[in-house]
């Protein structure tokens, strides 16, 4: 496969994924908490699975900065 055709295939791949994912992301964004909303509470375990955290445990103690992401 030539470089040009590889690049064209890569571009098509990106466009297809964006078209599939963006509507879902935008729909979730409309429902997501906004400034002023009560932050939805949650409890999650750490990467070892042994220690947990609950968002509301920090209420009245410290503000919380949430950083969402993944390795990829």
């Amino acid at each position, binding site marked *: 496969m030539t470089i040009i055709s590889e690049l064209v295939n890569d571009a098509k791949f990106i466009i297809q994924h964006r078209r599939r994912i963006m509507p879902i992301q935008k729909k979730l964004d409309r429902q997501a908490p906004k400034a*002023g909303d009560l932050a939805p509470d949650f409890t999650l375990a750490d990467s070892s699975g042994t220690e947990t955290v609950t968002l509301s445990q920090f209420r009245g103690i410290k503000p919380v900065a949430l950083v969402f992401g993944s390795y990829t």
Partner: protein
Amino acid sequence: MRLHELYEHYHDQVQLLSIYIREAHPIDGWWLGRRLTRGLFRVYAPKASMEHYDPKTIEERRAVAGECETALQYGIRTYVDEMDDHVNNTYAAWPTRLYLIGLDGHVVYAGGLGPYDFKPAKLKAAIDDYLKQVA
């Protein structure tokens, strides 16, 4: 402003939590390791991995989260969303997003959709404003 700088600057006053969610660009998904995108990805996200498949179990997700925590060294404790992606969906977090929650449990700052609106500098500004208000 980078995330580890935010941690170093504010960790006494603000609880920073890293919430590990569904992979953004796994090999078996919207993989950016192909010819066109690999170079661009390296420029904009030099520490991101291009070598992981999408975890199929919570154990797999926790293992990748642990690798990420070790590799990136943000200093921020990492907690892992369950495989139903409940917290991710509730906060519309995928692929990456920032929030600041106030002492009363209400959202002070809701960052825009990542990756383009993932801006630690804006989170910093929100933290500074909030800490002045509550001082």
